[in-house]
């Protein structure tokens, strides 16, 4: 660097830098590709190189961010020249500082060259900034659009009915992907069995995310989102202000969270909280409806001699589809059985509640003695009078077990299915009016059919025969086919539900199967040795004999004889081994055989007391044989197909005959 001082003097004398020095600066910068350079760091390095080449400077430093150098050169200098690097005077990039160990090293021309250099640097840096800003804006724009699209898609997904767990998993993964976090963790608090305390984790590193353990408590009471460079937390808070849980994100290396990330995560958390709250309410409602539905169905079916019964109810497969299907069976004071199956149109709690009302009304009418058609008529009047919006199909039937007489009426309900003991299933058409709540005064008629012993009757709701994928006629054919396989009512009911393929069935289904006991089965009763047992014997025996096809008179007479024998068995034994009586009965080819057994020895030979009269009465009605056994006393009663009481009192000899 010799001869510089002389040059200085020349330049100082010229009052400016010679144009060739400016040109050398410009060409040196061009050589270093400054005009095309878009990286600020490269620009600065090039400018410093050129400064050292084209000025006497021994040291060149760029101080970014300020128009004056902040500190020295790191070693002592005696000459210093600093010029601001600023574009258009107001866009300051920094200061270019030149230093030299010797004093007075820089002249005025050097200052001008340095300023020229700084001007070029400022232009280049300005260009770099413009390009960088444009890039950043474009990147932001693209990133924002993608984030918004992801948010919108998440909103659509969350709006559909989804199990809460699936929602939480979705939200967790979506949040992580949108903001490019390493891990996302959603923790939820347990809420009345709907949500169990749980964490949902999504990690770029895979499932073994190390930060999960640091996720903290489920609901920390975070009022608002919290953001630091590496952690972002937003509460899942429902629109009603209930805190459901917390969404936390952990940043990936080198990409700290931004304000935009926070805004997006907060929105996603709100979306998730609303969706979860909505789903939670829906689930609670479904559960309520199901509970209500179950509580309104009979707890157990009545125990009626000569009849076997089974009922099933299956809620719809879809979560929200709890309907108003119901069945009912009750014993009337005269021993008849009143059977009901119905379907209130509608879903959820309201349908279940309406079903409960209709069911209880029908029970009341049945107890009042109304026949099925009259009961339905009354129900229809009630629904229409109350102006309720109920609309229901109902089938009501009254079955006399002893005779098999079935009376039924239908309010728009699918026909009951009759299964004869042998033969083809048959739908009992007819006696069908419009559904309850349709017309103020429709015509009601009664259907009648006598069921042979061993016959079964199947009442069902349309869920068993109709669905989105099954036409009604196909469904009816399939039901009949499945029912024809026979079995006891429980087996039939189970099979019908299974055949209906309820897994893809949105509607609920109910089925009530009733079978008249077939005669082939033997009748056997064991009861406490108590007078009140005698009427129980009569009731069961009457049903059994009726089912076995005995006519009314024969049934009456055998029942009377057995009642006498049972009363004897209660009264006579002295110190019986145990206090019970047994009755066995069978009917074979019209011959009735009944054994009444007690477990003690009889007091005295029955004489002309009331009981003696009883024995005599038995003898008039049936062949009687009294056997004294070590175990106790057996009375065997027999009656052939002929009437042993003689023809004297035919049905014609009624009480009216006396004049």
């Amino acid at each position, binding site marked *: 660097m010799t001869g510089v001082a002389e040059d200085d003097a020349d330049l100082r004398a010229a009052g400016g830098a010679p144009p060739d020095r400016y040109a050398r600066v410009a060409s040196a910068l061009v050589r270093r590709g400054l005009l095309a350079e878009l990286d600020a760091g490269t620009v600065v390095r090039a400018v410093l190189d050129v400064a050292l080449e084209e000025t006497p400077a021994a040291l060149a430093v760029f101080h970014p961010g300020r128009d004056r150098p902040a500190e020295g050169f790191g070693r002592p200098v005696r000459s210093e020249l600093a010029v601001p690097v600023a574009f258009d005077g107001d866009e300051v990039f920094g200061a270019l500082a030149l230093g030299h160990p010797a004093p007075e090293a820089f002249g005025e021309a050097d200052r001008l060259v340095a300023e020229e250099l700084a001007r070029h640097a400022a232009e280049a840096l300005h260009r770099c900034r413009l390009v960088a800003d444009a890039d950043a804006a474009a990147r932001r724009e693209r990133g924002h659009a993608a984030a918004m699209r992801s948010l919108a898609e998440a909103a659509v997904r969350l709006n559909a009915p989804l199990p809460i767990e699936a929602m939480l998993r979705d939200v967790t993964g979506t949040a992580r992907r949108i903001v490019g976090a390493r891990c996302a963790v959603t923790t939820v608090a347990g809420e009345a069995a709907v949500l169990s305390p749980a964490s949902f984790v999504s990690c770029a590193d895979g499932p073994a995310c190390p930060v999960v353990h640091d996720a903290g408590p489920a609901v920390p009471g975070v009022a608002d989102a919290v953001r630091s460079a590496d952690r972002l937390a937003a509460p899942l808070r429902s629109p009603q202000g209930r805190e459901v849980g917390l969404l936390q994100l952990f940043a990936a290396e080198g990409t700290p969270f931004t304000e935009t990330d926070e805004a997006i995560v907060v929105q996603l958390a709100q979306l998730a909280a609303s969706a979860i709250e909505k789903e939670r309410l829906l689930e609670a409602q479904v559960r309520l409806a199901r509970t209500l539905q179950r509580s309104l169905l009979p707890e157990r079916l009545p125990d009626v001699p000569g009849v076997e019964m089974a009922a099933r109810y299956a809620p719809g497969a879809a979560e929200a589809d709890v309907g108003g299907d119901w069945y009912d069976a009750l014993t009337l004071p005269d021993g008849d059985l009143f059977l009901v199956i119905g379907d209130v149109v509608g879903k959820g709690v309201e349908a279940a509640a309406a079903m409960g009302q209709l069911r209880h009304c029908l029970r009341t009418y049945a107890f009042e003695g109304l026949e099925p058609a009259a009961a339905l008529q009354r129900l229809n009047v009630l629904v229409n009078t109350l102006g309720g919006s109920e609309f229901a199909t109902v089938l009501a039937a009254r079955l006399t077990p002893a005779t098999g007489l079935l009376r039924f009426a239908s309010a728009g309900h699918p026909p009951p299915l009759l299964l004869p003991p042998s033969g083809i299933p048959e739908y009992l058409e007819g006696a069908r009016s419009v559904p309850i709540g349709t017309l103020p005064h429709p015509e009601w008629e009664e259907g009648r059919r006598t069921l042979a012993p061993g016959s079964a009757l199947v009442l069902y709701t349309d869920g068993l025969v109709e669905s989105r994928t099954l036409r009604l006629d196909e469904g009816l054919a399939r039901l009949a086919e499945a029912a024809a396989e026979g079995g006891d009512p429980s087996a039939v009911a189970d099979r019908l539900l299974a055949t209906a393929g309820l897994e893809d069935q949105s509607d609920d289904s109910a089925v009530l199967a009733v079978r008249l006991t077939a005669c082939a089965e033997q009748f056997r009763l064991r009861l406490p040795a108590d007078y009140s047992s005698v009427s129980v014997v009569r009731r069961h025996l009457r049903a059994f004999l009726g089912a076995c096809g005995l006519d009314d008179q024969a049934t009456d007479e055998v029942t009377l004889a057995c009642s006498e024998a049972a009363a004897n068995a209660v009264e006579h034994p002295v110190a019986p081994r145990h206090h019970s009586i047994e009755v066995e009965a069978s009917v074979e080819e019209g011959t009735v055989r009944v054994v009444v057994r007690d477990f003690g020895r009889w007091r005295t030979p029955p004489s002309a007391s009331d009981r003696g009269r009883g024995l005599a009465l038995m003898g008039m*009605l049936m062949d009687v044989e009294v056997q004294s056994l070590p175990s106790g006393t057996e009375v065997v009663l027999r009656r052939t197909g002929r009437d042993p009481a003689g023809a004297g009192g035919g049905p014609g000899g009624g009480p009216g005959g006396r004049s």
Partner: protein
Amino acid sequence: MEDFTVKAEALGPHAIVTVAGEIDASTAPMLRAEFLALVDSGVDRLVVDLRGVTFIESVGLGTLVAARKRLRRFDRSLCLVLDDSQRSLYRTFEITGLTKVFPIHPTVEAAVEDCLDESAA
């Protein structure tokens, strides 16, 4: 099963006893007590309305027979009312020969009238 009930209504010299349900060893004592009370109170004629009765067995028949005997001892009478539809019950009376013992009428009015005639005779 219907509940067993006995209801007595005294109308001057005669009384009407209305029975419903099944008359057997467990219910007959109630009927017997009612008859005893009425006979002791001095009624002349007893009309027993059995139209609500669905079943009767020997103890029940015995109760009716005992009441009749007691009344006959004082020259009083006992009539029964049975409906046309109660063939089974009538048959029980018939088999045991009691249709020859008890006057049986289809209505309470007819029974009251007949009882009056009978005791007047």
